[in-house]
């Protein structure tokens, strides 16, 4: 049995933990570290330099890819959060509680569907149905729209999951109380509901945005391998295909890493911030 009072074993356990963490983070550190390489090649260290940062930031192709990613992230986030919000409204208020339970499971299931499977499914749906349908109405459903729809699909599961927990601690009886005190629907939404679910909305938005930034498969399939539209991950992918990989690939990856981490961490922090409702001492 593990006897944690034994100092030797304690040290061993600590060592093991450090080793696991090192295994996890060494590749990430290596990636960031090699971005400061002075040499020509990504995999050979030749001293410290910021030249590749300068190169990347003046690289129009990379800037364009970053802007594409941010734009797609923004639109897909708006769509997925809006969908998640309406879903949560329904799930909280429906009389069919068991149906809501089932649909909760269905909502989070796609998080475990292999992304490549989802991508191919999306491709079929968009090429076979969405594109022709929009063409009929006179709109060109291009790769940008396709990737936005794809990313929104990917993210809506995460967004619903996060938002639903927030809604669970929001007591809708408050709305009756507000109405009783003379508030109309608009005031109830703005003054009662919104302030209380705001952290959930923000968390859902951050996670959706991070999911969109991270995604490779969906973008790859829906933009026909990046020939029509390059997101940041697709740009990195294309760099790797070249004969000699320069440290620029590390720089671009670091940028992606930092932006994505920023949104993930904000999202997680917000979703974990304890709701004031949970602390209520009153009866349930």
């Amino acid at each position: 049995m593990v006897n944690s009072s034994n100092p030797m074993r304690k040290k061993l356990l600590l060592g093991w933990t450090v080793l696991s963490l090192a295994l996890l983070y060494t590749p990430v550190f290596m990636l960031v570290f090699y971005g400061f390489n002075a040499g020509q090649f990504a995999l050979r260290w030749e001293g410290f330099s910021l030249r590749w940062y300068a190169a990347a930031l003046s690289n129009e192709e990379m800037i364009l890819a970053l802007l594409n990613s941010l734009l797609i992230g923004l639109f897909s986030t708006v769509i997925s959060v809006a969908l998640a919000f309406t879903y949560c409204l329904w799930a909280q208020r429906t009389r069919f509680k068991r149906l809501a339970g089932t649909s909760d499971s269905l909502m989070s299931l796609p998080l475990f569907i292999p992304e490549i499977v989802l991508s191919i499914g999306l491709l079929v749906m968009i090429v076979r149905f969405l594109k022709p349908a929009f063409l009929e109405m006179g709109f060109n459903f291009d790769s940008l729209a396709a990737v936005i729809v794809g990313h929104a699909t990917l993210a809506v599961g995460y967004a619903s999951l996060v938002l639903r927990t927030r809604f669970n601690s929001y007591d809708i009886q408050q709305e009756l109380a507000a109405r009783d005190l003379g508030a109309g629907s608009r005031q109830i939404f703005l003054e009662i509901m919104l302030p209380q679910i705001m952290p959930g909305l923000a968390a859902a938005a951050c996670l959706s945005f991070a999911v969109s930034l991270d995604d490779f498969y969906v973008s790859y399939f829906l933009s026909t391998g990046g020939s029509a539209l390059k997101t940041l991950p697709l740009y990195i992918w294309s760099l790797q295909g070249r004969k000699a990989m320069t440290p620029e690939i590390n720089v671009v990856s670091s940028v992606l890493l930092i932006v994505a981490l920023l949104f993930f961490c904000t999202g997680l922090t917000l979703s974990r911030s304890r709701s004031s409702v949970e602390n209520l001492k009153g009866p349930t």
Partner: protein
Amino acid sequence: MNGSLLSVRNISADLANRAVLQNLSFDVADGEFFSLLGPSGCGKTTLLKIVAGFLQPASGELLWNGRSITGLPPQQRDLNLVFQNYALFPHMNVFDNVAFGLRMKKLPPAEISERAHEALELVRMKPFAQRRINELSGGQQQRVALARAVAPRPKLVLLDEPLGALDLQLRKQMQIELKSLQRQLGMTFIYVTHDQEEAFAMSDRIAILNQGRLEQEGSPEILYKEPASRFVARFIGNANFLNAAAADGLKANCPALQTDVEIIPFAKAAATAQPNQTALTQGVLLVRPEQLELSPCPPESTVRANGEVLMRQYLGAQIRYFVRLQDDSDSQVAVDVHSSEHSLLENGSKVNLFIRAQRIPFYADVQTP
């Protein structure tokens, strides 16, 4: 008492195709403390929601000073609700909670502040104005909910079991506070509860609901002394029902009812349900535990004892005995005696029982023709 503020006229309601309220009618007078009392599931909360405007009745009408308000939305009714779980706004502090209704009335800021503080003063929560809701105890949250409901000065305040979550001591204290607050404000209160003692402690009048029907309405005294039905008798206080049948072989000019305790003259038996005396043939008599008198029967006595002590509860001011009637019967009654006037009787003691009451409500069995 003034004229009626709210009249409930033939209200019926269905929830999920089940009749929850059936043809209810009663009036609530201006300035009255009125309680809706009934077991859980009797429809009292549904009725409250209809009065508040959150539910529409299937049929019937609500009159406000004689004018119909049946279709009016909640925000247009001059009444406020205190919710069972308070439903306070957790993202606002105490002051903002109380000021919410005033802000919705679009009052000038100075008046909002003045009236919100006044309402907080009433419930002795003024020092807590800047606190967050989750920093308050259950009793304090209850007071804030009350202040929020009375701050807009509605004519009518509806209270849905507001003391249900508090412990007994606090509940008793709040009962007194609620009643004096209602008097002080001169507002009409409609108070929903399943707790008979609570309703009795505060109400001017009480309506008793059972399975969506109005069983009886009246003052606590009337409800206790002259319950309209066996249900009300059993629901209010403690009730002993004595089987009674018309006694034969007695003088025709003094008809009486034979019970296991004693023979009761017709004149004493108040037939509550059926006024005609011909119905007084078979039924039950209601005798409260304190209306029974008991005296120990010495073993050598020649008078045949009519009861035997089964169990004793020492309640403080009173002693409650559970007494079995006759040797062969399984009917038993509860008898309350003052502990200061009686010495304790052991289980198994033979006793004589007497009824000390001027009027004894009688409920005839329903005759199945």
